[in-house]
């Protein structure tokens, strides 16, 4: 698996030393401040980066963590793993608790717009999965809906096509899919997870572009709302035009792995992968039509 050397310019050795001294010197306040100074941007931005949470939520979550940070630090035992890796596991669990404790919280800044007003999926509806994938990102509650759909689709595919489906729609991978891939290829779970990480790493630029467009869309949407409120028709018109361009850009950016990377992972010829994926898409299209006709 790709281990990222440094996040947010956090030096692992420096933060581990500070934690060690903080503990040795009976929760020393100077070291506590230093640790916070180093780690705060990481904590603050975690909900934004991982769950697309708004700045207000990030702020509230940061305060939520601050109140518990000493307990969190005390539960940490210095080990070989990077502190940020360990903290990421902790932050996810804490974030889920935070959302539970604050039910009704508007989790994302995007759902006010995209869920209701904008259709960010392909206009022709051909890329059914991207729609679901995006919803999955914006709304934690839609996991069951996504799972049911994936189950339905994979039930009409044979094992080889199911492998290609999972690798092509790599962001949907669930625990059962990882186990399926491990059994199919007779590889360890670690090898499967590492392989998937490698596949995704090759399309980092696509993820970056999509995310950047999404951020622009959110900002522009706010501008539209503000211009509507102030009655500034010209700004509203321009912002709506810009929104259309951004939406087209967003739809055009597909975060699918390359056929070459899938072929390399599977040990299949590239032609087999491309033909297989074309066939899967066609099966999904006719499946969608069947669903719509029911």
């Amino acid at each position, binding site marked *: *698996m790709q*281990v*990222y050397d440094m*996040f947010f310019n956090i030096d692992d050795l420096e933060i581990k030393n500070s934690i060690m001294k903080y503990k040795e010197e009976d929760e020393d*306040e*100077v070291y506590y*401040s230093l640790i*916070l*100074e180093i780690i*705060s*941007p*990481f904590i*603050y*931005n*975690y909900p*934004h*980066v*991982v769950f697309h949470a708004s*700045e*207000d939520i*990030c*702020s509230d979550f*940061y*305060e939520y963590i601050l*109140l518990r940070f000493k307990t969190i630090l005390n539960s940490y035992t210095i*080990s*070989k*793993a*990077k502190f*940020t*890796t*360990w903290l*990421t*596991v*902790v932050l*996810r669990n804490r974030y*889920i608790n935070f959302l539970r404790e604050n039910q009704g919280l508007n989790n994302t800044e995007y759902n006010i717009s995209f869920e209701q007003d904008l259709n960010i999926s392909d206009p022709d509806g051909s890329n059914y999965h991207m729609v679901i994938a995006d919803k999955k990102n914006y709304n934690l509650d839609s996991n069951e809906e996504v799972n049911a759909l994936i189950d339905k689709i994979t039930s009409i595919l044979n094992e080889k096509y199911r492998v290609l489906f999972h690798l092509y729609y790599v962001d949907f*991978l*669930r*625990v059962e899919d*990882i*186990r399926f891939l*491990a059994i199919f290829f007779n590889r*360890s*779970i*670690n090898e499967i*997870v*590492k392989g*998937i*990480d490698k596949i*995704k*790493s090759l399309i*980092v630029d696509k*993820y*970056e572009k999509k*995310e*950047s467009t999404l*951020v622009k869309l959110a900002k522009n949407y*706010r501008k539209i709302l503000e211009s509507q*409120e102030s009655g500034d028709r010209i700004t509203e018109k321009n912002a709506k035009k810009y929104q259309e361009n951004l939406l087209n850009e967003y739809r055009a950016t597909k975060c699918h792995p390359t056929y070459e990377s899938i072929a390399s992972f599977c040990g299949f010829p590239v032609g087999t992968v491309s033909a297989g994926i074309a066939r899967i898409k066609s099966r999904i299209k006719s499946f969608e039509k069947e669903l719509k006709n029911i």
Partner: protein
Amino acid sequence: MLKCPLYNEDMISQYVEGLLDEEESRLFERHLKECDICLKSVLDLENDLFKMKVYDKQLYTGLYLTEAVFLIIKNRLLMIRDIGRDHHFRKMKESYRLKGKTASENSYYLKGDLFDITIGKDKGDKFLIEFRNTNNRIIELFKENRLIEAHTNSNRERLTVKSLEKGDYTVVISDSTLEKRTKKDKIKIRIS
């Protein structure tokens, strides 16, 4: 939520980073084949780390404007630490009338985007906070996460909150002219 008795954040972190030794890795791998909770954690961690790496160029910067630690010692207010990014508390250099007294020795001043704030020494081991330029501002003062003062659209040039006890305070100032109050200044202060 269901829990796994073997769930261990450190084990998951080391597994993801490939740091477990052969035997530990084999045992954990065997566990992952059966445990949805731990395997989901591994997948989530891999995903989260990937996103943190990919999206670190598009971060929010609205963290606290500053976090400052003050100490009241021998009738003086001393600043021990200020870990602000762009804004910092400065010791008052010139004589400044704070609460009717010359307060240059005992006060620190910060100019924020939305307001100006002065932290000063009050009677005994108490302190005070003075806000300036508070028009169209909503000012909230929290002590240990509990709201203790709130002012909306104060038209006074100065607003002073006096006789504050030692503790952890958060000051949140937002622009009341914006409906969503997206523009905020936040300051975290600890007085020991």
